[in-house]
């Protein structure tokens, strides 16, 4: 590869400077606090998540108070409790001097778990639900950006609505941070922004990961703002615009209404939502580069983007072709909406999803599995990983004719290492292995076969909308507590990939493992003697 030209100076602008300041300030704050006795990355992460997420509770509490809602006190108290708990945890722990990879995995997973606990507490405290399993799955849907819920959003207070929407938005922002800061060290194939299978669209933007992060987060904030304005201009009320812009750009999918975007019955609003979801599925670094130089050709040059766009186009056409009647402006809009909502794993609804033909349904499910581009906030397995898998299959086919051939896999102009390849494949297999028992649990817990399968896939890709006898959103309601728990687990696993979760779990069982190994060794020694 030719050496890259030096990057230009950071983008000037108030927003960017503000975000950078905010990010660095929170980092310094946590570092200043964490001077405790126990050397534990897990402690610092949990504490940091709680300390930094508590302001959200307070803001939502304030909004609820101004609106005259009933949840402000509960939110305030939960927020205060989370803040105090976070401060305590951070205070007693210290960032370790060396950090083995398994600990880093554990820290990431525990960070997610901490967020889960905080959001569950908020759901229970505000009385949105009084069942632990429901609260847990709602919290999981919030922090993973899945549009699966048993709660009617129209019954929620403004505070809770904002809380859930901001929860989805913030956790997607956290994903960006993890993407830039942590994943390069973990090397979860194909997800990280600059390690593993880096392609040109997803390589670091600046020499320091801190400024890369600030740029991406600024972009994310700016996109959210633009989308909110667009929603407003399209005729959506103010609060709805805010909530929908937050949940659309984060590919979350929560809505203020039971019928999601479709209940506004407005073409312009739906087109804005389509555009927002489409953007949510694009690699953020790619958008950043294209925007900075005003060079839209960058999109065209990105292979992954072309495939992403092509998939949307093909499925939209197929959904239209396999439906009854000739396409009209409305059916075209709905078909596009379905396709974009599926591939960006947002899960917004408009039009009648149940009216899609069987073939269209299958294709939408495939899109859900594929998910957005790598280094985007969307869930799913990611377009790039599937492109790599396709190339891998092709290579193996060629190899069975020419067994001694040595071939590298290329994606655009960059080649992909064998290690990254193995990681991607391993990840796919692990995900499939997790999916099968979950389908079994769902089908044993009250869903029909189609519903169980599509719901499991949809939940793992963080979409939330599924097919079958229960309508697009009735699945979570139809399953019992075990189904709720497995759905929550699958959402979290789908969001942060299978490998980190399993490695973290393995690290928990490490003492037991080493004890077993020692026992085995002694046994073998006895045999040798």
């Amino acid at each position: 590869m030719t050496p890259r030209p030096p990057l230009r100076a950071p983008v000037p602008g108030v927003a960017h400077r503000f975000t950078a300041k905010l990010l660095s300030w929170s980092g310094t704050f946590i570092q200043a606090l964490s001077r405790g006795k126990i050397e534990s990355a897990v402690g610092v992460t949990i504490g940091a998540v709680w300390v930094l997420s508590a302001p959200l509770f307070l803001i939502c509490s304030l909004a609820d108070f101004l609106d005259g809602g009933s949840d402000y006190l509960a939110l305030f108290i939960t927020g205060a409790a989370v803040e105090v708990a976070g401060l305590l945890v951070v205070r007693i722990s210290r960032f370790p001097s060396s950090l083995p990879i398994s600990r880093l995995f554990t820290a990431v997973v525990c960070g997610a778990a901490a967020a889960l606990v905080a959001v569950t507490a908020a759901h229970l405290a505000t009385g949105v639900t009084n069942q632990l399993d429901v609260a847990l799955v709602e919290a999981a849907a919030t922090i993973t950006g899945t549009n699966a819920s048993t709660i009617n959003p129209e019954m929620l207070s403004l505070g809770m609505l904002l809380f859930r929407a901001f929860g989805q938005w913030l956790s997607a922002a956290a994903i960006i941070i993890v993407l830039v800061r942590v994943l390069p060290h973990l090397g979860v194939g194909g997800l990280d922004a600059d390690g593993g299978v880096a392609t040109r669209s997803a390589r670091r933007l600046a020499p320091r990961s801190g400024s890369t992060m600030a740029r991406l987060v600024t972009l994310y904030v700016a996109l959210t703002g633009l989308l909110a304005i667009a929603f407003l201009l399209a005729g959506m009320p103010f609060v709805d615009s805010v909530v929908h812009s937050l949940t659309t750009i984060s590919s979350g999918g929560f809505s203020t209404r039971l019928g999601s975007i479709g209940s506004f019955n407005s073409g312009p609003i739906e087109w804005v939502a389509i555009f927002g979801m489409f953007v949510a599925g694009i690699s953020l670094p790619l958008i950043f580069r294209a925007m900075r130089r005003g060079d839209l050709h960058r999109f065209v040059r990105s292979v992954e983007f072309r495939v992403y766009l092509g998939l949307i186009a093909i499925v939209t056409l197929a959904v239209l072709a396999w439906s009854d009647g000739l396409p009209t402006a409305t059916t075209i809009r709905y078909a596009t909406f379905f396709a974009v909502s599926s591939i960006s794993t947002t899960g917004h609804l408009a039009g009648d999803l149940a009216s899609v033909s069987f073939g269209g349904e299958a294709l939408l499910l495939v899109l859900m599995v594929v998910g957005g581009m790598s280094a985007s906030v969307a869930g799913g397995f990611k377009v790039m990983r599937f492109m790599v898998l396709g190339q891998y299959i092709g290579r193996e086919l060629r190899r069975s004719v020419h067994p001694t051939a040595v071939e590298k896999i290329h994606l655009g102009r960059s080649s992909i290492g064998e290690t990254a390849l193995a990681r991607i494949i391993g990840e796919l297999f692990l995900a499939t292995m997790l999916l099968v028992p979950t389908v079994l649990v769902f089908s044993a817990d009250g869903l029909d076969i189609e519903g169980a399968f599509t719901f499991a896939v949809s939940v793992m890709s963080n979409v939330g909308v599924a097919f079958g006898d229960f309508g697009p959103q009735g699945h979570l309601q139809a399953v019992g507590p075990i189904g709720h728990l497995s759905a929550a687990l699958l959402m979290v696993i789908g969001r942060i990939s299978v490998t980190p979760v399993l490695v973290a779990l393995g690290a928990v069982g490490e003492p037991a493992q080493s004890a077993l190994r020692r026992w085995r060794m002694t046994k073998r020694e006895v045999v040798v003697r």
Partner: protein
Amino acid sequence: MRRVAVTPVRVAGAALIAIASAMAISAAVALADGGGGFGGLFWSAIITAFVGAGLFFGSGVSPSSDSALAFASVAWSWLAVSVAGAMPFLLTGVIPWARFDDALFESVSGFTCTGSTILSDFGSIPQGVLFFRSMIQWFGGMGLIVLAVAVLPALGIGGLELIASEAPGPTVDRLSLRVRDTARRLWLLYGGVTLLIAVALSAVGMSIYDAVSHAFTTVATGGYSPYGDSISHFDSFAVEVVLILGMLYCGANFSTHWHAVTGGIGAYRRVSEIRWYLWLIFSAFGLLIWVNAGELGWLQNIRESLFYAVSLGTSTGFGTSDYIAWMPAAQVILLVLMVVGGMSGSTAGGMKVLRLQVVFRYAFRELVRARHPRAVVPIRLGQTTIEEQVAAKVVGFVLLYLGLIVAGGVVLTGLGVDPVTGFSGAISALGNAGPALGDAGPTNNFLVFPRAGRTVLMALMVFGRLEVFPAMLMLVAATRGVAQARRRRRLGHAALKE
């Protein structure tokens, strides 16, 4: 006579001759039974033998031989045989000429040991044709080319590659130094087991005709039965026990069986795949009992759960009851069994247990590597270590297999089949199981799929039986052959000009 040096043609000719013998035997059965169908079967045998002999003696073996050629030979001969196998159905009038694709479906479903049928009124079909139907499964089970290598003196292409590209599983065991001996031993064992099952079945009360037909399809893990209601026709526990044992035996690796027969039972202990195979089937059995506990009576539950766990775990597809009425969870378990299938080197279909093992180890290794990025972890199956190249091939196969399931399911649903029937149909066809879920359960036939959908299923069956790669490479080899011929002609032109 000038011989064309095209290996695939010669191999296809050999396979056709084998099938002609099956037709002749079935004609004899039809004659003895007196239920009609003799003429059709007889003429099919004549035509097939004639064409087969023409192809076999009219062609020679290409001077060069590589794996692509072996793949192509297998694939083309299967194509030829499938077409020939459709002939008796058409000539006897069991399936009208206008529905020739259905005859092809029945033939392909037979040779690939799938067992999906489009026949409905079994009472009116001549016994000879039904016998032929069972017999093509028997031939398809161990593989026609393995048979041809074993029996025909002058096939002329040696090498394990040819057998390996037909035999199920990523590797083939060399039972003897000579390929022909390996093939002979496999077929000897295969025939012996068939005889044993036939004797056992007649001992528990089946007529000889039924016993032989069912033995054919059991040992091939095919699943055709001369009765519309399959095994429930007999309603006999003893018959089911014999069939369960037979299916379990034939879903396991035949090379291991050979080692066990010659070298004692200890051979099984050395193979880790067999533990996985049994563990998989019996844990599915346990789960089925648990899920069905509230639905069926105790004895019936154990009987049906065991039968279906074995029948679908070995991709046979015999039926004793309608599992479509079971709980959704039970059907999901059956679907998983259909995907995995039996052991490698057996007559069973599916992805194969060995590949599942490799995939498990592969995924597990990635977990270990995620924690210890510099670790070197070999993929071990029991005592043996799998080479990276083989592991990569297995992984590629599994990915392609999953991809084909999705593609097949999407196409079928696109043709208007409901998702459960469509996807389970694709899984069942690719895994050569037979029955599917939804509308295509064990008591229904495959006419529920639209005509175009049945063609898709046929392709999937062949892909599944030939383990995907040969079928795909058949096309590659064909295009390569054309390209070579073109190049040669161009060279010839250039030489002329000079």
